[in-house]
């Protein structure tokens, strides 16, 4: 599927909300058990889910704001509350979507129905045909790919959902995990039976079909023993929600000798607080491979975690983060070696430009029992000017000396020589810089399917120049 991706910078000044009140109190006050019951009823939750939501709300209300990372006091909980209320009248009108977002869609050539979905106002993005075709092929292989609500109501999967939902990321994990547990809506459920090797990647892009589905969505993937799945989340078009908060959750269960590759391209509009939690648990000989491109948003907290629970399990994280003007992106990855001979590799790049702040936070934990484990972390940052900032915060917690852990960090700038070299071959300065930056991001783009890699390169080019070539 060919898509254009031309996105102009979003005038963030329109969305700079600041409030004097203590953010934590303010956040906690807005959402009431009544609202949660309303949501639960609307969705026809089973009893256990209703209880779960209410319990998560209690946790949300008593949990402090995160004590690290960029400030989130600009979050407007009033809007969020209004937004998550079922049958909300808010933001259901295309006329309310800011002009600059509309202009972006215009440039992108996105069809109107799809624009409305991306802007969170429409539910009618008609990807059903494509989606059904994909689903048919997938179903023949015995794979289940559906939305989480349907799965929860299907007697075949209800138990599976109940035993896995928010078991990897419990609501007690942090305040926004608790919020997610209380108000989650939409998302994907994928089940790959043992031994099934799915050749085509599943793409959540085709599932942009419910209002607000991208905002508190829950992704639950179970890959049984010896199975293979590549799941792709997101697309490069900017996603806009007036409420300004994305608190999704991704839980991945990888069976013995199974492989799950989870690729993401996220491009949130620049008013968004992207407070997302992703976690996987990997059994003996299994592999999880994260490929992650983080673009957009005002503030991001994103640290996909891999728990290597079986002997010889392997985790790989390849990521890129691009922080432009007004953005503070706190990203990284966490790996827990919790069994012998487990291996992990992290390869991340971050780019900061026009005053953007990018922080790379990694954590490698090697438990006492994880003898013979190996881990390597490599992070590289590129600062495109003197007003941008890039930090690296690596943490290691090693409980055995019978392991091999390495860390490498580099911070650099684009050399004038490199720019002149490319310009002397006919490339204008912006293009030259964009090509150097795209090259820097090559670790991620070469891991993505071709069309996504192209989208990502376009996105980088756009962030660099304001245009797609």
């Amino acid at each position, binding site marked *: 599927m060919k898509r254009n991706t031309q996105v102009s910078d979003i005038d963030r000044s329109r969305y700079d909300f600041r409030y004097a009140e203590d953010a934590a109190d303010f956040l906690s006050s807005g959402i009431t058990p009544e609202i949660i019951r309303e949501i639960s009823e609307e969705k026809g939750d089973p009893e256990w889910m209703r209880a779960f939501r209410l319990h998560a709300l209690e946790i949300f209300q008593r949990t402090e704001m995160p004590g690290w990372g960029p400030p989130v006091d600009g979050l407007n909980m009033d809007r969020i509350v209004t937004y998550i209320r079922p049958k909300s009248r808010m933001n259901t009108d295309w006329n309310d979507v800011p002009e600059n977002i509309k202009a972006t869609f215009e440039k992108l050539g996105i069809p109107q129905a799809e624009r409305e979905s991306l802007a969170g106002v429409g539910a009618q993005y008609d990807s059903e045909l494509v989606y059904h075709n994909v689903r048919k092929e997938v179903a023949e292989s015995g794979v289940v790919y559906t939305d989480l609500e349907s799965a929860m109501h299907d007697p075949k999967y209800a138990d599976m959902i109940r035993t896995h939902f928010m078991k990897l990321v419990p609501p007690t994990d942090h305040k926004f995990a608790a919020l997610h547990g209380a108000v989650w809506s939409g998302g994907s459920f994928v089940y790959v039976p043992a031994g099934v090797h799915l050749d085509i990647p599943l793409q959540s892009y085709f599932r942009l079909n419910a209002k607000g589905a991208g905002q508190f969505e829950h992704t639950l993937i179970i890959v049984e023993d010896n199975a293979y799945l590549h799941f792709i989340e997101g697309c490069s078009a900017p996603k806009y929600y007036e409420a300004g908060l994305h608190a999704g959750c991704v839980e991945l269960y990888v069976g013995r000798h199974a492989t799950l590759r989870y690729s993401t391209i996220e491009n949130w509009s620049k008013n968004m607080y992207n407070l997302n939690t992703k976690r996987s648990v990997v059994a003996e000989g299994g592999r999880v491979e994260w490929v992650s491109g983080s673009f957009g948003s005002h503030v991001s907290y994103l640290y996909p975690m891999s728990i290597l629970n079986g002997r010889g399990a392997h985790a790989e994280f390849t990521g890129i983060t691009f922080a432009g003007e007004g953005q503070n992106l706190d990203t990284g990855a966490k790996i827990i070696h919790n069994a012998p001979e487990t291996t992990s590799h992290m390869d991340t790049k971050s780019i900061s430009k026009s005053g953007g702040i990018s922080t790379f936070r990694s954590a490698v934990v090697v438990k006492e029992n994880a003898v013979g484990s190996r881990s390597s972390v490599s992070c590289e940052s590129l600062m495109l000017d003197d007003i941008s900032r890039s930090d690296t915060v690596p943490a290691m917690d090693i409980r055995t000396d019978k392991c091999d852990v390495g860390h490498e960090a580099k911070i650099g700038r684009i*050399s*004038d*020589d*490199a720019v*002149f*070299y*490319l*310009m*002397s*071959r*006919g*490339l*204008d*300065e912006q*293009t*030259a810089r964009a*090509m*150097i930056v*795209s*090259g*820097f*991001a*090559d*670790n991620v783009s070469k891991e993505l399917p071709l069309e996504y890699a192209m989208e990502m390169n376009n996105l980088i080019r756009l962030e660099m120049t304001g245009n797609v070539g």
Partner: protein
Amino acid sequence: MDLLNIEHLTAGIEDRELLHGVSLTVGSGETHVLMGPNGAGKSTLGFAVMGSPEYTVTGGTIRFAGEDITRESPDKRAKRGMFLSFQNPVEIPGLSLSDFIRNALEQVTGQRMKLWDFKKQLKAAMDVLQMDAAYADRDLNAGFSGGEKKKAEILQLLMLKPKLAILDETDSGLDVDAVKTVSAGIAAYREGCGGSLLIITHNSKILDALHVDRTHIIADGRIVKEGGAELIAEINRSGFDAYTGKGAV
């Protein structure tokens, strides 16, 4: 008609003037050689003519095909048909040699060549330079040996077909065989598109396969002597001492 016309060019880095009024003219289809001792300003002239922001032009003019380009950006000069082969080509990780050339070609010609045609042309040019086809997909200059980098420069020359190529010490650091291969590449450029050459060199080996129209000797930021091909033989015999003041002692 003059293709490149440099008049009274003064240029330098920050406050330090390195070129003190250089004048030099290269006609269409001609091959010129620029020689001079270390630090004479050879590379500075190449960079200044190509518009490197590292050097500030403080006086004089550079004309290309009659147009004043003294203040033009390097990419615009490239689009006019100028090319500089770097003495130390820059490594660009993540950008493949072939993607780079294809993009540059699109910029200078204004057309995107069909991938199939491009690959065929690239292969043919790489064959001239005895380059392993695998280099096309490697990151531009990254981890290339000195000789491979120089070949990659000449590959760009063959593909971009500029009207004027300034080759800055393309032969430096190359072994005898590599010099032969590179000079075969330069000859192929001359024959292929009849472009002009301004070859900055210490070494006459690279000139063996070429007919040289004119030789310029630069010393201490000034052109001190000009002549035909015979001047190269003289320099090979007696060196630059006669032009640097040392010979007078």
